[in-house]
């Protein structure tokens, strides 16, 4: 029997008023005129005081973008995006870059407090009043619309030799590093959205961890879209030099609006010999209302290059937001014995559409990859897992294990799986499993007969379903993620 009516009602009550991050911040903004052309790109580059080489790079990307066509092979349906009808630069007027916290517009600080994101380091240690989010020991780069507004704990990190700053700053202060690595994992012409991003990206995080250093704290960036009719294009670049380790968290929210907003980010990760990068995302962009109006279009290219031997890159994500999600965090396993991991929970409700998954490209010998993807569909949503496991001829002894499971709540939604498996080496082993299920009536009844409410029962079962993924998240995020899951699927509002 399909899910009982009460469960359906519970679930559908969700996004009426469930998105508690939907408020807007009134603050003076410096907005570039709408439209996308060379002048806008020059304007962006000038505002950020960029060196010539970067402007050239942007212009090349723009030229490439103009030759490309929007991709339409994913199982997502959306009206044509008018790329000329967006502002490509929006920054809080007072400061065009991160300064000391005293100089940040107090309105902004209040915004982050409301979101539960502590920016004052003292506040971090003391615990911000009413904050739910990550507490101490996390260095944070806060990005508001197109710019980074504050980065905490920078001096502590500098002592360890770790560079963590907005990419706009890194371009000025560490140009050789940026130039050496930018665009080497996701080339500017890799795909339509990557090319767009390369042309108009405004900010994002840059991190470099030197040889042998275990980054002393977790790094994170919190992205907040605020201005209307803007596109968000951040660019993140993380380099872990030989023998180093860094754990990075990414969080995102946006105000509740009727129009769709575009978010096209690019994340490049590079791990050298024996280095490890752990990249966790809790994505909660505004998903649109119960009728599918509004919501963020989340088109992201994320790729990690395991360049060194025995290097490791892990992607962990909990995706509950955005009207449309199109992202495939990938690992290119070049170094022998390198490891790629992808753990994901993707929830869709109402009219959300997600087409997400991972690509693992095995090039080196004895490389290993693990993909665990849990999709939960509810309402009238569509949730697709799309993955690629490719074993190239030299990938002797390579191993992949993929598990993708779908949980359907209600009979109006869809769950789809489209894995591509390509192997050109006989000693490479690929194992793939996928299952589809629902929350069974007898499971629900069992929980309720033991005293749990229907809501609690659904929550418990969903958590059990996602257990394998949630345990990969850094502790602070795990708690937030579980809460997010509960909110996305239940009627309770925080």
């Amino acid at each position, binding site marked *: *029997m*399909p*899910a009982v009516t009460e469960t359906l009602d519970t679930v559908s009550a969700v996004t009426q008023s469930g998105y508690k991050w939907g408020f807007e911040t009134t603050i003076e903004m410096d907005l570039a005129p709408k439209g996308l052309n060379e002048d806008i790109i020059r304007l962006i580059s000038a505002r950020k005081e960029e060196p010539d080489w970067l402007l050239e790079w942007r212009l090349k990307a723009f030229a490439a973008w103009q030759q490309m066509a929007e991709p339409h*092979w994913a199982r997502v349906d959306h009206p044509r995006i008018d790329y000329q009808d967006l502002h490509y630069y929006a920054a809080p007027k007072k400061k065009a870059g991160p300064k000391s916290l005293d100089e940040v517009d107090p309105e902004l600080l209040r915004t982050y407090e409301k979101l539960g994101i502590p920016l004052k380091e003292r506040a971090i240690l003391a615990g911000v009043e009413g904050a739910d989010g990550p507490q101490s020991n996390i260095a944070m780069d806060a990005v508001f619309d197109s710019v980074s507004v504050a980065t905490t704990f920078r001096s502590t990190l500098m002592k360890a030799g770790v560079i963590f700053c907005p990419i706009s700053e890194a371009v000025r202060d560490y140009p050789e590093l940026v130039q050496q690595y930018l665009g080497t994992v996701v080339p500017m012409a890799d795909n339509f959205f990557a090319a767009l991003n390369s042309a108009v990206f405004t900010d994002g995080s840059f991190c470099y961890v030197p040889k042998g250093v275990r980054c002393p704290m977790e790094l994170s960036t919190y992205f907040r879209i605020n201005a209307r009719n803007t596109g968000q294009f951040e660019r993140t670049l993380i380099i872990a030099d030989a023998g180093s380790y860094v754990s990075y968290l990414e969080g995102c929210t946006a105000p509740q609006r009727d129009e769709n907003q575009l978010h096209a980010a690019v994340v490049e990760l590079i791990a050298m010999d024996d280095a490890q990068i752990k990249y966790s995302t809790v994505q909660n962009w505004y998903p649109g209302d119960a009728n599918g109006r509004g919501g963020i279009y989340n088109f992201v290219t994320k790729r990690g290059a395991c360049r060194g031997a025995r290097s490791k890159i892990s992607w962990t994500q909990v995706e509950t937001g955005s009207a449309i999600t199109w992202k495939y965090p990938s690992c290119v396993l070049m170094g022998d014995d390198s490891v790629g991991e992808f753990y994901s929970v993707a929830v869709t409700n109402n009219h959300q559409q997600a087409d997400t998954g991972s690509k693992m490209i095995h090039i080196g010998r004895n490389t290993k990859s693990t993909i665990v993807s849990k999709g939960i569909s509810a309402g009238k949503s569509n949730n697709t897992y799309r993955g690629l496991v490719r*074993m190239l*001829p030299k990938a002797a002894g390579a191993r992949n294990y993929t598990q993708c499971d*779908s949980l*359907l*709540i*209600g*009979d*109006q*939604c*869809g*769950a*789809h*799986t*489209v*894995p*591509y*498996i*390509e*192997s*050109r*080496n*006989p*000693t*490479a*082993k*690929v*194992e*793939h*499993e*996928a*299952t*589809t*299920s*629902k929350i069974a009536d007898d499971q629900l009844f069992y929980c309720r007969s033991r005293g749990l409410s229907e809501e609690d029962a659904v929550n418990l079962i969903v958590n059990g379903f996602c257990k394998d993924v949630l345990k990969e998240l850094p502790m602070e995020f795990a708690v937030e993620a579980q809460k997010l899951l509960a909110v996305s699927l239940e009627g309770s509002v925080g």
Partner: protein
Amino acid sequence: MNAPIATGVPAFLARFEGLRTRLPGDPAPRLAAAEVLRTLGLPGRRNEAWHYTNLRPIEDAAFSEPLTALRDSGMLLARVPHIGTRLVFVDGRFRVDLSDTPPAIFRPFAMHARFGDLAQPAREPLVALNTMLAEDGAIITLPNDADGGTITLVSLATEAPGRTTAFHPRHQIRVAAGARLTLVEVALGTGTYLHNPVTEIAVEDGATLTHVRLQDESPSAYHLATLYSSVAASGTYDSFTLTLGGRLSRTEIHATLTGAGAIAHLNAAQILTGIQHADFTSVVRHAAPNGTSRQTVKNVLAGSSRGVFQGRIEVARDAQKTDGYQMNQALLLSPDAEVNSKPELEIFADDVKCSHGATVGELDAEQLFYLRSRGVPASEARAILVRAFLSEAIEAVAHDDARAMLERAVSDWWEQHPA
């Protein structure tokens, strides 16, 4: 000066022009099909469903009409086991002289040309090609509750020196309510040719069709088969395809479960070597509740061969209590072999049990050593393990003679290509 030889679609369209008046049946569907072919052309890499299989060789070849078969196909025919009532087609044309007495339920397409409504020529260029040029085929119609026994359809292609021929048989099988039939199909040939059959199968309420297919075409042939089946309430369509031959082959099977409790098995095994490329694409659509589907496909790839498996399970909103299972395994026997696998699930109903699994690997070293340590020579040990790998798929074939035919075909293959 020689005029450039037309190849691919233009050549087929030209041939249609030449043959039009002589082709049997209503010309309207043929004309519509020609239009589709003219507009769409053959499927290319951009077509998602043809992502892994390249039809360039067909685009580049100039196919001619088969000659009225003068050559003796006796040698080829001798290789075909005689199971049930044997009906023989040579180069796509029914040969009453080489066949057993045709049963009443059989009529050749050449005499009774009728296109069914299951095939989709408007969407599939190869089906349009067949609709345009089909000359003959088997039309088998069983009345209610009839037991059709076992019928073997044999397709032989004879070598025509200097000519690359193409033929497009059109088959229709209808098993009415409560009836049963076992249909064995064997395809053999010599030389280079294109065999492009389209088969439309209707299994009605409570009826059963067991379909065992052996594709052992010539190593330089092109075999592009498309089958559409529709299974009504409590009906069963149980099919198994063994692919051994052909330079480039694709078997595309669609099964739609239209009635409650319908069952469809689309199982297959492909054993390839050399430069063979074989693609097995299957789509099961659950349109009604309580349906059961199984797709177990095994690929054994040696030499520089390439095996492709694309399998989709689609479950419609109303198809609750569907039980769909798909398992695809590939064994790579050489470092130059390649496998591409895309097992898909498209689920819109929540009370279902759907799963798929896929594995790729090589023969297990531990198992090989165990056999050798007991005295079994290396190549025989490999043969035992490959046969064991395939047995799960072949054992599913219930019909004893048909299964024996498949097992012998596998043994023969191994003897000719000891790895």
